[in-house]
């Protein structure tokens, strides 16, 4: 009896401490929150807002196309409207909504308190909000991008034809792409290292597999686009001729870089929505998913194969038939895993007793629409068919069947399904049914006729068309359908707004689902989980009776916040054995401030206000350094802590055991991909020119690249020496090595500068010169960042935050330097040695 009593008071005290530690800030300070529950919701609301905005643009586009020779909007406005529609749907809605939903759901699904880098999530969100508002807002100043969502040169590089809108597109979206990569890093580390004890990799929810694969894809898909953006902006601002054939450039390079990103992007959009279905279908069938391994196959298979499709967007550029054959083959192959995915859902429904609730309705509608879009996809993947259909409304129909069936409808299914999770209230089933049927029929009425207008030759991206080609009434029907669909979307919005206040309060786990996110409490607790459970099933809520009580009563891991710090559990990649307790940073305005200043840098660069851009960039970097300094890698007050259930775990880990090391490694993989894309550019130019470097080229010679490589690699060696010395307790030597390393790296930068400045290379004259300049500048910037990191480690050591035992900083910096040394070596070999080999 008294035992029980003291247990209860203990649990009460623990709960009070947890509540205090995880509480949200109040008043205006609320916006400094970094908790995934807040950031996830902000992110979703923002992305949805951009969706509605882009949808209104689509309605304008459709209204303009309703009848032939219409003059509702001007051609200039039409171009902006469809370009911004496509751009926003893809960059400001489809990809960010994945990140948003994952940030909201993932921690709870893993019974983690938060993801490992909450401030990074917050930073990503603020970047997204600022960059997105900038891009979207441009249309009110008649300055929106107008060259189509893929910005082909020479149209988009021409300053007379494509005004500032193109710069807004390039810089605004680059800024957001960086945020996407940040989110990808966060999500990968989250899935791999933050699972609850016992959730071995074969037990994790399928959603996690998709998150892992999609985040991995982002890491390889976005960097080529960033590389392309850099080349593009250099041409627009400084007239470097990357895409100008007169000076050795080639517009097709942009198409390659864009579509190496652009096709995987389609799957980056599609897979996360399928992942939502992989959670919804088993719940409403009340049976586990049939064929877990098949879903893993589908996710991994599409993830990979989708990278072998990019040139199917380039069938009409005159590539050799052999090349087209490769891409056509991969395009057909990707249908296999995609089909498997769909059959698994059908099989699961067949084994269970399906409850046709609103989420299931949307899910079923999604399958139907997507399969149809997939069929036209197989058609356009065949080069000869595509030559006929390319750039007609047939393609518009195809892409909307896949995007709306593959992402929008599953997402709305997810909205109805997870709404009680996020808000503790239910949406209305009656309104949901209305919304579904309006959206579903409206969608088909809109886009089915476009197949026919397309086949009858109506080009896409035209602001109007003549009567009498058999396009007239089909277009009118399309427009009519678009407004029906819009009413459906409006009903969803109204229902959401209504339910926030007046919705029926949701019981806990309203759908009787089996996965951990539904342990979420109905009261407004902010701690995620009261305590972390031990998992032994794929559907713990179905198979582990008493689990929820155990968690709620604080009988799991980490039931307390004794040190007054936010903490979460880090476990092993394969078997989820507990490894460490990770201290998490708390609420802070620093991520917001960093986003504001870095955003200023990008936005000012758009208008070529260089002083403001530089100032913004420098202050932004300063804020980030301050954030790292105060928020990361502080030695804990004790080496170990009691993690509950008799488990004692370390509070500090460095190297491959620390989450920071993984984050650095993953980031650098993305960085290396961008670099490889630039190198790809060099060799691309080599293939299209009979002689490359051109015979009249004078630089950069061998001497300067050689010196740059030697000094830079020596700098790398000193970083490694510093790491060793620090580990071995010879702190003074480590500090000296860091100083020497910084000096060597600066020497390397200087030698690189000499290589391009003193050898007669002029980046405006020929693409060869420009390419060499870009490679050298890229490398120099990495060296400069490396110097900053060396000095940072030095300062940390002097301040006592980095010690022989607590060496996260230097180990991460050493890892960074491995990649930088590789970048340096490749750059110098390409610009210094390759001309000898080819010339």
């Amino acid at each position, binding site marked *: 009896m008294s035992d029980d009593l003291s247990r209860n008071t203990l649990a009460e005290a623990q709960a009070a401490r947890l509540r205090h530690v995880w509480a949200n800030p109040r008043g205006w300070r609320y916006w400094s929150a970094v908790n995934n529950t807040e950031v996830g919701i902000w992110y979703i609301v923002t992305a949805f807002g951009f969706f509605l905005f882009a949808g209104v643009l689509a309605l304008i586009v459709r209204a303009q196309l309703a009848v032939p020779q219409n003059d509702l909007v001007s051609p200039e406005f039409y171009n902006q409207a469809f370009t911004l529609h496509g751009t926003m749907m893809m960059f400001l809605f489809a990809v960010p909504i994945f990140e948003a939903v994952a940030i909201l759901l993932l921690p709870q699904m893993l019974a983690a308190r938060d993801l490992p880098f909450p401030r990074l999530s917050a930073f990503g969100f603020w970047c997204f909000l600022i960059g997105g508002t900038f891009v979207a807002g441009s249309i009110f100043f008649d300055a929106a991008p107008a060259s189509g969502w893929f910005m082909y040169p020479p149209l988009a590089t021409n300053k007379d034809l494509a005004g500032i809108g193109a710069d807004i597109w390039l810089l605004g979206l680059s800024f957001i792409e960086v945020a996407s990569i940040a989110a990808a890093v966060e999500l990968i580390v989250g899935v791999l290292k933050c699972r609850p004890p*016992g959730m*071995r*990799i*074969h*037990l994790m929810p399928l959603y996690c597999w998709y998150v892992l694969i999609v985040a991995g894809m982002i890491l390889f898909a976005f960097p080529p686009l960033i590389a392309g953006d850099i080349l593009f902006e250099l041409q627009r601002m400084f007239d470097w001729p990357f895409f100008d054939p007169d000076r050795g450039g080639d517009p097709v390079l942009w198409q390659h870089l864009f579509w190496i990103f652009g096709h995987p992007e389609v799957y980056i959009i599609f897979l996360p929505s399928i992942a939502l279905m992989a959670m919804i279908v088993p719940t409403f069938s009340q049976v*586990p998913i049939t*064929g*877990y*391994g*098949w879903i*893993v*196959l589908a996710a*991994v*298979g599409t*993830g*990979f*194969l989708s*990278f*072998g499709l990019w040139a199917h967007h380039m069938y009409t550029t005159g590539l*050799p*038939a*052999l*090349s*087209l*054959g*490769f891409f*056509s*083959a*991969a395009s*057909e*192959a990707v249908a*296999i*895993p995609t089909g498997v995915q769909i059959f698994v859902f059908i099989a699961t429904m067949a084994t269970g007793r399906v409850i046709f609730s609103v989420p299931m309705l949307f899910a079923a509608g999604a399958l139907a629409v997507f399969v149809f879009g997939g069929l036209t996809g197989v058609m356009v993947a065949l080069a000869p068919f595509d030559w006929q259909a390319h750039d007609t409304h047939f393609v518009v129909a195809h892409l909307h069947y896949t995007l709306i069936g593959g992402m929008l409808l599953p997402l709305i299914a997810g909205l109805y399904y997870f709404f009680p999770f996020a808000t503790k209230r239910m949406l209305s089933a009656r309104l949901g049914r209305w919304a579904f049927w309006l959206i579903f029929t409206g969608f088909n009425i809109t886009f089915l006729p476009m197949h026919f207008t397309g086949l009858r030759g109506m080009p896409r991206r035209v602001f109007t068309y003549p009567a009498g080609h058999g396009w007239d009434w089909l277009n009118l029907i399309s427009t009519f359908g678009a407004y029906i669909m819009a009413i459906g979307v409006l009903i969803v919005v109204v229902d959401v707004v209504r339910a926030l206040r007046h919705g029926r309060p949701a019981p806990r786990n309203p759908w009787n689902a089996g996965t951990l996110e539904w342990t979420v409490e109905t009261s407004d607790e902010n701690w995620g989980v009261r305590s972390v459970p031990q*998992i*032994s*099933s*794929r559907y713990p809520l179905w198979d582990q009776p008493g689990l929820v009580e155990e968690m709620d009563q604080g009988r799991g891991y980490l039931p307390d916040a004794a040190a007054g710090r936010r903490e979460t559990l880090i476990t092993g*990649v*394969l*078997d989820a054995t507990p490894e460490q307790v990770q201290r998490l940073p708390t609420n802070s305005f620093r991520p917001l401030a960093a986003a504001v200043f870095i955003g200023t840098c990008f936005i000012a660069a758009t208008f070529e206000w260089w002083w403001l851009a530089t100032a913004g960039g420098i202050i932004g970097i300063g804020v980030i350094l301050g954030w790292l300094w105060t928020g990361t890698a502080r030695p804990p007050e004790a080496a170990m802590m009691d993690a509950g259930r008799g488990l004692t775990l370390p509070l500090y880990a460095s190297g491959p055991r620390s989450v920071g090391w993984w984050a650095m490694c993953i980031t650098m993989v993305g960085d290396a991909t961008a670099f490889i894309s630039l190198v790809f550019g060099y060799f691309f130019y080599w*293939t*299209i020119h009979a002689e490359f470097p051109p015979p009249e080229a004078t630089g950069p010679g061998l001497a300067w690249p050689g010196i740059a490589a030697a000094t830079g690699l020596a700098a790398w060696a000193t970083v490694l020496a510093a790491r060793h010395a620090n580990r071995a307790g010879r702190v003074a030597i480590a500090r000296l090595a860091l100083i020497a390393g910084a000096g060597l790296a600066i020497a390397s930068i200087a030698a690189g500068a000499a290589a391009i400045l003193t050898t007669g290379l002029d980046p405006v004259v020929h693409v060869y010169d420009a390419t060499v300049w870009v490679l050298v500048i890229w490398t120099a910037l990495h060296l400069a960042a490396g110097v900053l990191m060396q000095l940072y480690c030095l300062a940390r050591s002097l301040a006592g935050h980095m010690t022989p035992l607590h060496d996260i900083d230097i180990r991460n910096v050493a890892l960074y330097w491995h990649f930088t040394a590789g970048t340096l070596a490749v750059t110098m070999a390409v610009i210094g040695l390759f001309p000898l080999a080819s010339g």
Partner: protein
Amino acid sequence: MLTRPDRATIVTLLAPPTVWALHFLTAYILAAIACAKGWDLGGVRLVIAAATAAALVFIVLAARAAHRHTGFTADTPPHDDPTRASRMRQMGAATFLVAALSFVAVVFTGLPAAFIADCR
């Protein structure tokens, strides 16, 4: 991977499609350069054929290792016990399927090179 056949990990899972990716890049890059530079396509097609054979052999070996990890018939799906052995079986099963898909995809990529003899 092949050198440590007793373990099924994320690396073994991703190995077969990675081989597909390398094979795809080899084929595409070689053909692109050959056609741009006017190299002899016959030689390139032979190299692609050899690369295809090598990739297929690797994938078959990976599939065999994966099949071994599934424990043959000792246990049938869904492989969802909270044990290391079950994890091995599940990863083995998934890897086997991924390997099968990679096999098909490599064959698909090889086919154009088998049939198309010039750069038009």
